[in-house]
């Protein structure tokens, strides 16, 4: 059974390897873009593509049976709920801080490099 996923030719690994380099290169490039919806969605899309490739090809998940796929990839979906709740909570805390303590008075330095 695990043979199915292990006897395939090396080609698919090389393709995945190169794809990871290209996708990471583009991810790094986004750091030079202007902030905005385009950059944010590019970061997230590239992140999901890379993660999917690693799990599917390098970790052989694509060749596993549905029972294992669902047992491992199903539970993390619950994290989306946590992300939603904590993002609401975070915004609420920020609003109440602004309302009760006002704007930040922190003085910050620009990072200098030596």
């Amino acid at each position, binding site marked *: *059974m*695990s*043979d199915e996923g*292990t*006897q395939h030719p*090396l080609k698919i*690994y090389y393709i995945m*390897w190169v794809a*990871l*380099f290209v996708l*990471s290169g583009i*991810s*790094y490039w*986004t*750091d*030079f873009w202007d902030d905005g919806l385009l950059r*944010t969605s590019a*970061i*997230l899309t*590239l*992140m999901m593509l*890379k*993660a999917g490739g*690693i*799990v599917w*090809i*390098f*970790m*052989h998940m694509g060749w596993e*049976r*549905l*029972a*294992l796929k*669902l*047992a*491992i990839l199903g*539970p*993390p979906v619950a*994290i989306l709920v*946590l*992300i939603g709740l*904590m*993002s609401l*909570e*975070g*915004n609420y*805390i*920020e609003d109440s*801080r*602004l309302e009760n*303590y006002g*704007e*930040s008075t*922190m003085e*910050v*330095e*620009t*990072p*200098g*490099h030596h």
Partner: protein
Amino acid sequence: MSEAVLDSGAEEAPGKKGLVDDWSRDKQVFGVPWGKAMMWIFLLSDTFIFSCFLVGYMSVRTATVDPWPNPSEVFALQAFGHDVPLLLIALMTFILITSSGTMALAVNMGYRRNRELTFWLMVATAVLGASFVGMQAFEWSKLISEGVRPWGNPFGAAQFGSSFFMITGFHGMHVSAGVIYLLVIAFRVKRGFYENRPGGYEIVEITGLYWHFVDLVWVFIFALFYLW
């Protein structure tokens, strides 16, 4: 682990039918070696740990009214007379990807029973992993020398330091553990420890699962902490 438990004799159906069969037939649910199933379950629990860290980071970053330090400037390095943003982080990313490739090849060579090549590919993976940890140590000392602490930093919100040290520290610990794990298994492969064992070279795939997971976590840290 007897073969009779693994295979009840019936042909295994694919897809949804197979899902029902796997859970309802009187047999082991996951048709994979137990070590592999347990590694996956461990990695699932680790997924939750890292998710909690990253969600915690998102919460404090959203909630603070202080300006968030710009990671692109904080992690810039001087090269060729310019400040290059995220230079070291990009390098660390490429090193980890390279090590992922060598690991994938090691798994394949293990199943082909090419012990010598499996050994060297695993050692290469470990060396790349160790250089990743070394660069992270450099990154940490650079930030610490600039006054970044878990409780505050000169560049903005105090939560930056606590998130940074906790998330990258925990990830670095995983990489370090992975380097040790890889070397242990690599030397066992070299001296033929797995030659006559029932599981054979599955262990290389299981080690590979752990290593790819470490790379997977870095993908999320890179996108959500450094680029965001």
